């Protein structure tokens, strides 16, 4: 059923009787052309683009839990393309362009709203580092503005400019960046893929890979064996647990990233604001909750929950930036499992096993990458060639030294 104001009208007068399931719940077929492991944002968008762009609809997405149960179900929903390095910026700008047409493309309102992302800086050295990043964006044709303190004060009068330890000197603004309703992205892609014939199979965990003569033949799952010529793994924080089964050791550590939402409040934050001398980012959802987060807790974890010191640390930075936050109450805190790579940038590449493709290493940036990650992974799976904007995301880059290290913190995942 096509969604529109008309469809709402029809259902209004029929007591909501005509809504049909957003996706089918098929039994897994014994064989597909492609099996995508992971029913999160990246897995679902991969399947969608395989069907829509690359004509491969005989595809199954196998998900161990319910669709969108991983990081796409719990993140701070920020979408931006303000990256520094040539290995990243083209990819994230491609993603932002896909975001800009997503609702119409999926016929599903993911509420992508471009209200701007402002990264604050507090001294000359940081100003120049942000200028370097802003100029890299402009070279890629992306909007970027370097604001001085007066401009920041006009945009965000609620920031603290006086009683401060680290005065706010200015900010790097990307107006086209913003936020989106994360669950809706997963559901939109799921609906789009399902309506094009892709089988979305929930409660179906991969327990092993079928490999013959160095080539993939399919996967073992909790709901039986599924054969396939090509298998794409996009399971974020569970990457190691799945790829262990293919005997691959990866430059990945799984870490817990906490995020927080406050009780619903009347509009007060125009867009996304992030602090410069402490990891803190915040925006306001359409339901009025302030959604914010900061650093990962900093130790390996699959527990999908974090600890108290990091909650305190994030709130200290929030109060340093915006003491008006004080009386907003945290309603809920949660933790996701981030697949932190050794240089802070993702991996979309072939693997030593022919026909087995890997998509991981998303650190903090998985949500904003959902469209481009799906598109590029589909391109790689379909054509066995990386998409032009994702050529740098090689698995072997760590051995050759072509690392993509935005912050320059080196091979220490909890510093990215």
């Amino acid at each position, binding site marked *: 059923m096509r969604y529109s104001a008309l469809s709402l009208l029809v259902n209004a007068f029929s007591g909501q009787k005509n809504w049909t399931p957003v996706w089918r719940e098929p039994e897994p077929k014994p064989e597909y052309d492609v099996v995508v492991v992971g029913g999160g944002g990246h897995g679902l968008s991969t399947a969608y683009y395989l069907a829509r762009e690359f004509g491969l609809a005989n595809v199954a997405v196998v998900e161990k839990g*319910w669709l969108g149960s991983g990081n796409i179900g719990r993140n701070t929903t920020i979408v931006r393309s303000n990256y520094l390095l040539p290995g990243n910026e083209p990819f994230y700008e491609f993603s932002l362009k896909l975001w800009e047409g997503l609702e119409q493309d999926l016929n599903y309102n993911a509420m992508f709203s471009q209200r701007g992302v402002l990264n604050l800086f507090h001294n000359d050295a940081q100003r120049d580092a942000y200028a370097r990043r802003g100029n890299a964006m402009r070279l890629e044709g992306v909007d970027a503005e370097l604001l001085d303190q007066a401009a920041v004060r006009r945009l965000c009068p609620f920031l603290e400019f006086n009683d401060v330890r680290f005065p706010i000197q200015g900010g790097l603004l990307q107006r086209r960046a913003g936020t989106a309703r994360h669950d809706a992205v997963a559901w939109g892609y799921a609906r789009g893929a399902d309506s094009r014939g892709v089988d979305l199979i929930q409660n179906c965990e991969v327990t092993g890979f079928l490999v013959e003569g160095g080539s993939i033949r399919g996967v073992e799952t909790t709901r039986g064996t599924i054969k396939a010529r090509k298998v794409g793994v996009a399971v974020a924080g569970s990457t190691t647990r799945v790829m262990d089964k293919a005997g691959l050791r990866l430059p990945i550590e799984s870490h817990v990233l906490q995020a927080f939402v406050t009780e619903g409040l009347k509009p007060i934050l125009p867009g996304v604001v992030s602090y410069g001398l402490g990891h803190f980012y915040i925006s306001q959802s359409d339901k009025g909750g302030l959604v914010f987060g900061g650093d990962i807790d900093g130790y390996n974890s699959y527990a999908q929950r974090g600890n108290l010191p990091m909650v305190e640390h994030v709130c200290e930075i929030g109060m340093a930036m915006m003491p008006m936050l004080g009386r907003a109450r945290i309603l809920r805190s949660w933790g996701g499992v981030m697949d932190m790579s050794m240089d802070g940038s993702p991996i979309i590449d072939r693997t030593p096993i022919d026909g087995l493709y890997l998509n991981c290493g998303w650190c903090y940036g998985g949500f904003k990458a959902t469209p481009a990650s799906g598109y590029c992974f589909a391109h790689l799976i379909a054509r066995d060639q990386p998409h032009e904007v994702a050529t740098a995301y090689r698995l072997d880059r760590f051995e050759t030294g072509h690392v993509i290290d935005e912050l320059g913190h080196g091979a220490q995942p909890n510093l990215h």
Partner: protein
Amino acid sequence: MSGGQPNRLAEGGLVQRDREIAFHFDGRRYHGHAGDTLASALIANGVRLVGRSFKYHRPRGVFTAGSEEPNALVELGRGAGRDPNSRATVTELHDGLVASSQNRFPSLGFDVLAFNDLLAPFLAAGFYYKTFMWPAAFWEKLYEPVIRRAAGLGALSGKADPDAYEKATAHCDVLIIGAGPAGLQAALTAARGGARVILADEDFVPGGRLNGERMEIARTPAHEWAAKAATELASMKNVRLLTRTTVFGAYDGGTYAGLERVADHLPAVPPHQPRQRLWRFVARRAILCAGATERPVAFADNDRPGVMLASAVRTYVNRFAALPGRSTIVFTCNDDGWRTAGDLIAAGGAVEAILDTRGAEDIAHLRDIAGDAPVFTRARPIGTAGHKGLSAVTFLNANDRPVTLSADCLAISGGWNPNVHLTCHRRGRPVWNDRIAAFVPGSDAPPGMVVAGAAAGAFSTHGALAQGTERALEVLGDLGSKQPASGIPDAEDAPYAIQPVWHITQSKGRAWLDLQNDVTVKDVEVSHAEGFRSVEHMKRYTTLGMATDQGKTASVPAIAVMANLTGRSIAETGTTIFRPPYTPVAIAAFAGGLRGRAFRPIRLTPAHDWSKEQGAVFTEAGLWLRPQWYPRRGEKSWRESVDREVRQTRRSVGVNDVSTLGKIDVKGADAAAFLDRLYTNTMSTLTVGKVRYGLMLREDGFVLDDGTVARLGDSHYLVTTTTANAGLVMQHVDYCHQVHWPELDVHMVSVSDQYAQFAIAGPNARKVLRKLVDARFDIANEAFPYMACGEITVCGGVAARLFRISFSGELAYEVAVPARHGDAMIRAIMEAGREFDIVPYGLEALNVMRIEKGHPVGSELNGQTTAGDLGLARMISAKKDCIGKVMAGRPALTDADRMTLAGFKPVAEGEELTAGAHFVGIGREAKTAHDEGYMTSVCFSPSLGHFIGLGFIRRGHQRHGDKVRAVDAVRGRDIEVEICSPHFVDPQGERLRG
């Protein structure tokens, strides 16, 4: 009823009738008593309409008597102290309390947004995913602003939170969460066993349900028993009783987070006191006695003001002597609901009828509680009347015929849900218990936590007291403490008889599940129809349980409705994840005292006060404050001050406070060997009295930091690091020693704060120093050449150290004295330099001089550069391994096409340079593919009279003389620059060796 408060019972309740309190709600003045909550006071004053629901703006009244309240959310206070979304049911009344309703325009009584309720058919669950897509631009311009303005309940003031907050850490043997019957009994038992006990309760009076029930414990009224127990506990040395304190999070290692509302119940926060305190409880064991929360039943129009939980109605009667309604109907599916009827009758209130869904045989033993109130069995409510307050209830009687009775209060009991939240904060899952039709704690509660009382599903008072005692004895056994005598006071032990009813299917209208987010049974049905069948999908699609009460009264009935739709059991359907905090906690409470200037510690050099006296302008360098420049009267721009400082230093002499640099003392027989493994160049060949510039790599081959190594004795070295990396390098050297080479006899300790250090630079530097260094030390060039170092004395015998190192490129020494003399030393240096017109120079002037010399700093050592990039490849010794050497050889790090450090000067006369610009070939389009590098540091060079810069550009060291464009789009600049050597001033370094 007493005078001004129409619904206040003449006697009874725990409120202090002698202390009348005036307060305001929506501009009207009312009176309550000390011991009231805002909700009980409003009820006593006959106020029923207190809010509007989130989506349809339906009228909302007080629904509960605790922190699970979905409806009575108000804004407290005014101005910067405004507190949105405060629960009236847990807001302690105090003099001058000002509250206003939220989420309505223009007024609570007449809210135009209630129009949404008429559009309800169009606004079913998830409607916004299906529309607002055309035209695309309208989303930010029209649709979203409308949605956002309607969203949210209360509003932040937009001003900084004026109150102070505080954090504290408390250790104990046993943390007991909840001071109801189970908690009080557990605390008494544990404390008598000698354990160190913390008992915390969210209420301002200990006792929990005991304060809301009409019953006895050990033949005394339950609330008196509770008060006596609390008094005894408060008097025990090994007990800490914290009221108004919610334990809201269970974290790892027996750490629990609590929020103490220190002053929210006072008209104003007392001086030097925090408004709230965040507690970190570190407990060897915890006993969860959090009680249970009653749940409603879903049927058409079950959301009108006046519809309340049965336990809440009797709490308002028993504890607050406030009558929620003049004539009350009690609707229940279990025996417990009948207590409300009994208490109402005992207090003189009118019970219109008792509706029980069960058969006559199930309620025979309860009949006499009803007195002469009519009892209807097999009764199922199918509708209510009364727009802004309940006026009538229609139900099907045992013969399935509708009966309508007038009533202004409907007390509903759908049964009780144990408060399992804290057992699930570490991803534990509750399990369904069919006997009591509720989820109870699973076996995977956090290690060290046990559960007692209603929270474990033991709903009788005796059950709570017994389990409190048993769990405490178990814990004492665990801890090896003695087992005290532990009689259990006698109390009612009524069986919990329930036949759960979730949704009256015969009722046709909208049956409400989540009263705040306006989620109906129909929405759950739509969610099911569209495939959102897992409880996690249902929650997200319908937003059920995502409001400020987190579905405490709504979730279980909703799970039951979905289970019924999918044909799976409630146990199979399961719950969503319970997450901290149990109830919302202010962000300021998590930040505590680390606010404003105290956000992070401030590190000051020993000469800080002196620099301040000179009027220095400071900047932050990590946690340090460093002088940037020392303006003089009449200087109109910072450039004027900086140019003067540079010229005077290069012409005569200047002094700079370098105390912030990291200093690590390294001693031991293997010190030299160890330094060889840390630095790329060889340090073991350094002779005593000499200094060497060194480069440190990370193990991945990129540069970590640079600095100097001075050999002060046979096995005594002093390492310096950049200010920014001091902590990182200390951590790195400890790691390399303790993890890689623990066998080495080497000892490192930071001495950054032990010394004040000053750089004295310029042609007259030696003359100034000569006046300070005690005569017996020869500091002439021959005796103390460039890169020499030594231990000396200054100013008549004060032990000091002298280093012939120069960052400015001038003839320069660095003199270090113990920090206690730092302030005196800078004054002595300035005095000695007066005849040479010595100037203090700041970070900015230092930056100019080091750029003129081409020295890299943080902006060049940015973690993405190799030794080769910095033109220092030759510093990597071929004769030995060092940290990072192997990985520095990787193909990409030795690629000839890498960007290397070069100097830049503007081609056009008088043109300025900017850092952060990217280099693009002349005549080529400015795009990523043509990006050849970036400018890292720029300054106006007083020595050369024009701007100069350092930066990285492909094969920079081979392209001196070439011209490229420096494109700085964010600053609107695109200028031609010439690549040159980064060593602008005195490239051969004659001055250094003067």
